[in-house]
């Protein structure tokens, strides 16, 4: 095999594996990309999908209810313009509180957001970037929440 042929073989192999990888990535994107919406997005663009999505906003004050067994939780996610009712089964993260930022992943069903995971935060000042942006979009942003 001449050096040129050898090189060509490997370049072809390289392209082939890149092709396979791109195909994998594209199909994976189709199924696994999780879009983020604010409550206003969902109400105004009347988003109605059974796909996994993320929603984010503040936990509306006074909306947090726990069931008898303490495991099923109901609350509302708000960007202070619209709010979406949500349910979640499981222990809440340490920093889950009313009036605090929250990002939840799950799906919409009959206007209620069924959260599969509540994304945990690492510190009390941390406002998820998505939440800050959606509050800004709704015109309810009150400056930097940091410190």
């Amino acid at each position, binding site marked *: 095999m001449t050096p040129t042929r050898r090189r060509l073989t*490997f370049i072809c192999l390289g392209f082939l594996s890149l092709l396979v990888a791109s195909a994998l990535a594209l199909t*994976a994107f189709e199924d696994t990309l999780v879009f983020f919406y604010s409550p206003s997005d969902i109400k105004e663009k009347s988003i109605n999908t059974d796909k996994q999505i993320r929603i984010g906003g503040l936990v509306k004050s006074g909306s947090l209810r726990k069931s008898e067994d303490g495991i099923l939780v109901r609350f509302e996610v708000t960007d202070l313009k619209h709010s979406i009712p949500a349910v979640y089964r499981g222990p809440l993260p340490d920093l889950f509180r009313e009036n605090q930022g929250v990002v939840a992943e799950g799906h919409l069903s009959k206007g209620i957001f069924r959260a599969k995971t509540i994304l945990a935060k690492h510190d009390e000042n941390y406002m998820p970037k998505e939440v800050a942006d959606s509050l800004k979009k709704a015109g309810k942003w009150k400056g930097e929440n940091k410190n």
Partner: protein
Amino acid sequence: MIAELGHFALILALVMATVQTAVPLISAHRSNTVLMEIGKPSAIAQFFAILFAFCALTNAYITSDFSVVNVAENSHSLKPLLYKISGVWGNHEGSMVLWVLILALFGFTVAVFGKSLPPTLRARVLGIQGSIGVAFLAFIITTSNPFLRLNPVPLDGRDLNPLLQDPGLAFHPPMLYLGYVGFSITFSFAIAALIEGNIGPAWARWVRPWALLAWTSLTAGITLGSWWAYYELGWGGWWYWDPVENASFMPWLVGTAFLHSAIVVEKRDALKSWTILLAILAFTLSLMGTFLVRSGVLTSVHAFAVDPERGLFILAILAFFVGGAFILFAIRAPKMALGGLFQPISREGGLVMNNLLLSVATATVFLGTLYPLFLDATTGQKVSVGPPFFNATFIPIMIPLLLLMAIGPMLSWKQGDLASAMSRLWFAGICSGGIGILFWLLNSDKPFTPIIGFAIAGWLGGGALKELADRILLFKIPLLNSLLRARGLPRSAYGMTLAHLGIAIFVCGASADSAWRSEVVFNAKEKDQTELAGFNLKLQKVDRLKGPNYETERAHIMVTKDSKIIANLYPERRFYPVQQMLTTEATIYSTVVADLYATIGEGDKRNGWVLRIWYNPLIPWIWLGCLLMVLGGVISLTDRRLRIGAPEKKTGNYKTVELGTEHG
């Protein structure tokens, strides 16, 4: 006063780094062998200056000198000593000092231990390493001075984020930095070789110890980080494909590819420009990781205070070094002599496939990590790319790699024989089938997919052992002679076997954990009980206790099986008053085959507490596998060939009929 001296030492280090860059590079270019030697003392001086600055900062932390802004913002007088020290690198400024300290450490090791390097190459390596130092020292001094004073002096500090007050995390950053900053030195070697236009087996041998050191540390650093996330965050998982995790994983993948392709350069004088490219890429990805973490584009526990100015500065550094490196590469690489020829089916061919698959895997991780940032920047649409994406792309690429890992080492250099390699792999086949069937019988009631992982792991592990056995002619010659051969085997051979076995064990752990974990969430009052994976779990009581800088609610969960007490678990929910922060302290009961992992949530005596308990099968194997990889790296590092550094005599490794070199 000491803080000012520390600041001064940083400036001194910048001056030294400038000397270390300019003088050796220019005098090497002019073939001035006397002036060139200045690289050595200046690299040593730069290292000690930064070490002094680092100690000065550590001193400020230990003595709780709250007149220093950095200490006041990140420490507290009540914090245990270990966390006062680890607090030094628990924040942006301090961790940058650690970053440059390690950068200078690698320059220092080249200056002190690089005696066997040709003087010109050493001068150039030190020069390039110095230039990276210049960039980052300038970054620290202009944007992130850790020694800034505060007036008035606060009475006490603001404390370190409680999540970071943990022994696992105390050592995670130093190890991680040792790894990915360590790829700076392979980068410097690559650039020096490009400047000289000369790269060959000797170069690969020189660069190997540093590359191994960086790779081993990075492996250890990522493992520590993952382990920390597992037991400290209380989410029960060990890897989340979080952008920051990916930022450290990409240099690891490319670094792994580099280690393998450097072998081809060393043994066969081929794949030279590709190897140089990998060295550049590994460091590029390290710098990109630094940028992602410190620019505020990501929000995570790793992201330090958001400051666009810092992000821009690092981006400029990234652009300069990466841009420069690629331009140099574009000019010089085509002029490099084409090395030894080989057939596609050969040891070289196998290593090329390894490189190809690792690079493609890196590309998918890169895409998944950066796509959300890209989409947000261009369209404002927010998306997240989570584990499902990586499972669907990364794993299918890894499977052929794992299968090839057993075959590659069986092929001979230049021209291999696939049929004979496969016939030698009968043992791997038996292991694969045996382990697959064994685990299937043990877990017949559970999902099947992990069995594929076990079969692959068995194939890989069996292949690795068989390769070692063949080398010492085990059972082919008398056992004693085999043992003698085993003693004579180079340590790097054991390193490889251990690392490959480590991967096999890791794959078992990761496969089992992917589909066989089970969990129970229940609201328990004292004396309530539940069942999980055949264990009986009973909440005995919950105590309120006080720690050095926190208050805690501690549950006592008794684990029994067939009314025998197996373990007592004490998960905690801590409150840190200084930072007004709650943390979950999981407790883990580990056996060889599984972890019981318990956390306690909100609650009180009247309504009970929410307990969440996981049964995570084979998780300890993940750590064991990583440990073996690290051990393999360490053992390879002690290989005699690397310590002596003298060119190895060409012995029967391959037929020494050199084919004419061609330019192309």
